């Protein structure tokens, strides 16, 4: 497989602050590639540079073999871009919206008609063909915006937080839509600050913070790499069981930290791989601790994400948890 998107030391400064600090990534043909990071990590700036909306201060990126610096016009023909926040025109019907962008890409009239029908079907808006764009629901506008990015049948889709502000149902629909697009052979770059949202959808991930790539690779690789030393949740019978377990765990070398939660569960961070986790459990049981549950904390990647991106708990963490409930 060949890399469709190749990012080479891409850098963007705003004044004295470094928004994107030399990112290197490559995305293969047919991948759904997720960019994850907290707000302000540089995801949007990166996507904007790829979409030729911002000129990088250093480094370069190639999409479909065209440099975003030197051949922005060629790049624009192979990408479809959906910004994180976008508006819609007043006084415009759904089909006119797509027709307008079809004209922007200079599609002939017959092909435009065909394209409008196909795309409205694809994003499930055929029944809203004559509706005014500004009267559509948020989810519908989002789908229409995605359709606009597909008008010229681009190779690569750049989607900036496409699921933000959507209800759970619309999210599921969007995910289905993206899988369909992948089946059509599109390469998709998608950003989000919610990891679980991407974990199910993406084939590869890059975790970004402060403009740097902290981890990148295929989803299985990343989760495998960090499975070692996960966080486990333990439930014991009664409070005495918890005390016992706490005492026993503190003796074990694999245990990094033990944290007693108000709901009576023990949060245990372990180093080492799954073998050592099994050994810890065996030793607990051997010590006579009556263990009811021994399970990995909700999402390894989510934990990892929170650890390595070092978010301030007041804002981003809270938002992440809320969003998780939706996803």
């Amino acid at each position, binding site marked *: 497989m060949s890399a469709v998107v190749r990012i080479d030391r891409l850098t963007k400064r705003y004044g004295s602050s470094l928004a994107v600090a030399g990112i290197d990534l490559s995305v293969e043909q047919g991948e759904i590639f997720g960019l994850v990071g907290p707000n302000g990590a540089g995801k949007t700036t990166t996507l904007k540079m790829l979409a030729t909306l911002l000129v990088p201060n250093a480094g370069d990126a190639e999409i479909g073999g065209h440099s975003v610096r030197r051949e922005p016009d060629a790049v624009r023909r192979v990408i479809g871009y959906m910004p994180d926040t*976008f508006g819609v025109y007043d006084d415009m019907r759904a089909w006119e919206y797509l027709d307008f962008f079809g004209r*922007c890409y200079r599609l002939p009239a017959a092909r435009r008609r065909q394209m409008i029908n196909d795309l409205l079907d694809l994003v499930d808006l055929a029944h809203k063909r004559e509706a005014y764009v500004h009267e559509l629901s948020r989810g519908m506008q989002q789908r229409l915006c995605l359709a*606009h990015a597909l008008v010229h049948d681009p190779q690569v889709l750049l989607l900036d937080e496409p699921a933000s502000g959507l209800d759970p149902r619309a999210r599921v629909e969007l995910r289905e839509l993206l899988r369909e697009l992948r089946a059509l052979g599109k390469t998709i770059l998608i950003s989000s600050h919610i990891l679980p949202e991407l974990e199910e959808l993406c084939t590869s991930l890059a975790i970004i913070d402060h403009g740097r790539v*902290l981890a990148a690779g295929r989803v299985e690789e990343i989760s495998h790499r960090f499975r070692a030393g996960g966080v486990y949740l333990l439930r014991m019978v009664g409070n005495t069981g918890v005390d016992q377990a706490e005492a026993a765990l503190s003796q074990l070398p694999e245990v990094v930290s033990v944290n007693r939660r108000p709901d009576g569960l023990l949060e245990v961070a372990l180093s080492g791989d799954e073998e050592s986790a099994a050994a810890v459990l065996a030793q607990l049981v051997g010590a006579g601790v009556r263990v009811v549950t021994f399970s990995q904390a909700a999402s390894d990647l989510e934990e990892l994400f929170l650890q390595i991106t070092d978010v301030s708990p007041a804002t981003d963490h809270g938002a992440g948890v809320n969003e998780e409930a939706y996803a």
Partner: protein
Amino acid sequence: MTPLARRLPRGGRVGRRLGSVASAVSAVSTKELRGRMRGRRAFVVVTVYLLLLSAFAFGIYTYLKQASGLVATDPGMGFPRPMPMPGYGVAEAGLAASIGHGLFGGLLMVETLLVLLLAPAFTSGAISIEREKQTLDLLVTTPLSTTGMVVGKLVSALTYVFLLIVASIPLASLVFVFGGVGPEDLVRGYLFLFALAFGMGALGLFVSALLKRTQSATVLTYVIVLALTLGTAGLHQFLVVTTQSSSGGSIISQQRHRAPEALLWLNPFVANADLICATTPNSYHETCAYLSRVTGRPYFGSQWSGGVVDVPIDAPAAAPPVEAQHGAAVGRLPLAATSSIGFGFPRDTFWPKSAAAFTVLGLLSTVLAAQLVAPSRRLRIRRPIRRNVVLVSTEPAADVVRDEIEELDPANGPTTETVTDEP
């Protein structure tokens, strides 16, 4: 307009560029006009506009008729007869001519005012509103030519303004009923209005591309409109007064040290004065006197008003062409024609310059607006680029960036290890 885009030659690079601009103009103006002309609003505006203009014209007519002290003796509507017929009084023909002249002048000035207010109103939000509504990024990521996009916006806005101007032509033709104003005067008036609409529309577009917010763009545009009208006239008058006092009031030096005429080229009302002066039935008119002061051309006032202004010293040869031009005028009343022989003010001394100035302003504004919309093109006014420019442009500086990055980011592998050990 799409067929036009397709018919353009695609072979050469220039042809392809033209084709892409034309298709962009077509795409954007189609989109804009669909929105603008949708529903009843656009047509209600035209109707209301025509009603107001008619009421205004009727007001001028009534006022002039009463001010003249002569009451038409016709039965019925009280309109004077269309043409001076045999047996029809000379005084009445003169009255009709002055009504025609007054009506023409009044309508021209009102329409100038409307264009001055409406053209920028349609364009001063055109680009900033795309920024505010966050639709501009969607446009810029298409291969749409930015010049085409800006021109498309202008075309759609001007189409509507032109529609308003054209819709008033039948009403303005009413002046032919009274005489005194020929078709050539009307054509000149409308040519000027089109040039004015183009210049002001493009100016609004440029300001819209320059400023982030529609509100400030609109305010700045109208401040410019005010500066072009009241501002230039005031400044010109100030210069006239100061040069006069410094040169001791001698007529000769007054001619030599005339305040710069170019200052008023972008003042649409001075051009109006030129157009109105050309239709004056009496040989003296304030507008002609003012223009004479502005352009320094000779102007002899007529017998009865006593307004001899700016006696020429160094340009006495201007009289014969004046006569020739006035004699050639079609549809001019005998009275007006006879009284202007040897007097009067030459035609087309000022407004063509003014129309040309507005056209140049329009072209310049359009080009600049297109430059401002492009994300990565040659000119960048809005976003002041600081030291990062230096960092990118020179080789050693680029290394500095790289060093900085390496300092911040001790490669991917080690980072993740240290993080996992953290808890």
